[in-house]
């Protein structure tokens, strides 16, 4: 049976402007999938741009080869990541001067 793990990296957290999730080690996993649930948006057209980042050491980061995802308004977006090496995080941006979102962010991993 393959090992798997789900981690809640942000829980009911209000985000605005630029942000990054905490580094998460996942070197044991072959595949990963992000779930970003926007529980509340300050306006229906508020966009969150979500870029997957990878790191060899948890300190230095670059964008992964998967395209940035965009969440608009409330709802959930999800995307897979493979060949990510050791560490994963999301670098994100809430678009708009007054834009804010309340999110729950899951990282799910599988051997």
């Amino acid at each position, binding site marked *: 049976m393959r090992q798997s793990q789900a*981690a809640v990296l942000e829980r009911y957290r209000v985000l605005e402007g630029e942000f990054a999730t*905490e*580094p998460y*080690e996942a*070197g*044991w996993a072959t595949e990963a999938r992000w779930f970003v649930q926007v529980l509340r948006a300050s306006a229906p057209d508020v966009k969150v741009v979500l870029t997957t980042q990878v790191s060899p*050491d*948890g300190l230095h980061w670059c964008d992964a080869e998967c395209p940035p995802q965009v969440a608009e308004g409330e709802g959930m977006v999800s995307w897979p990541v493979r060949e990510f090496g050791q560490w994963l995080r999301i670098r994100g941006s809430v678009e708009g001067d007054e834009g804010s979102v309340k999110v729950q962010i899951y990282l799910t991993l599988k051997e």
Partner: protein
Amino acid sequence: MGNITDSELAGSLRRAVLDADPALSRYNPLSRILVFDQFNSGTHGWTELIGNHDGEGNLDTVDDHMRDFRPPQLSSCTFFDVGTHGAMTGTYALKVATRPLAGHTAVAIRRLTMAKKGLVQFETYFTYKAEAASEENGAAQQAGAGEWDGNIHPSEQQFGAFTVATDICDDRGVRYHCVARYQNTDLENRFTRRWMYPVVPEPTPREHLEGKAKLAATDDFTAPNPDDWRYFGEPQSFCYNEVPTKVNWHYLRWQLDTEKQRNVELQVNDRVYDMRDVPVPAYEERYDSLDNLLNFYVSTRTHTNVRNFLFLDSVLISVDW
């Protein structure tokens, strides 16, 4: 050869069997092994602690100080200077990591129950680290960072504290916490290197709901008032090994008595602390829905804006029932 009793023979045979297994031979379990968690093969039930939520699943109802204890990670102990260090057993250890925020606490918990009262023992091989500095995290400029003298590394003074603790409730609803905390530095980032215990029970979600407690996000959830902690034993130094990227594993053995609702003793490497006289305050109110609760948690708390990490190679919990 002198005569040996049946129980002495049984004890010797049991120890011989333990010693035949390299993984178990490094432990000293009581008569029944309840769990043996080698994190090279998964998280084994260690999960993030979170406060309670309402009937609608609204996590806004979770207490502010109990909603961000961070998910534990299976870590290969990989660092910027050498790459993968690895664990004591295989590649992976359980890592409990704080945010880079002074006062933030990360907590992983293991949930069990008691089939009988008696002795309970928690053993682990552990190590702890502050995060290495980078341009992005700015650790070298954060509180606690000092001069590098070629021996003591500035990051060592940026590690706050780690805690081993329980949440126990008997079959009559009497609930209490046995707690042992290693305080590496005080809240001003000065080395103290002392073991300590709280003299008050941990504030609970029910007490908050009843208006008796309201803590801020980075308050010390185990006992928020620094005056409610007492040192025990003499200062103890560990093998931090000079830099934040070298991992040396330390042995910890902590024994409790759930019949007496007391600690028994704490062994950490070459020191054994008698904890029989350490007070263990129970809640005045009785708790329902927690019959025979036996939870263990480990936590780490940073006293500066630098991530703190507690690594566990493996855990063995044993009982005398």
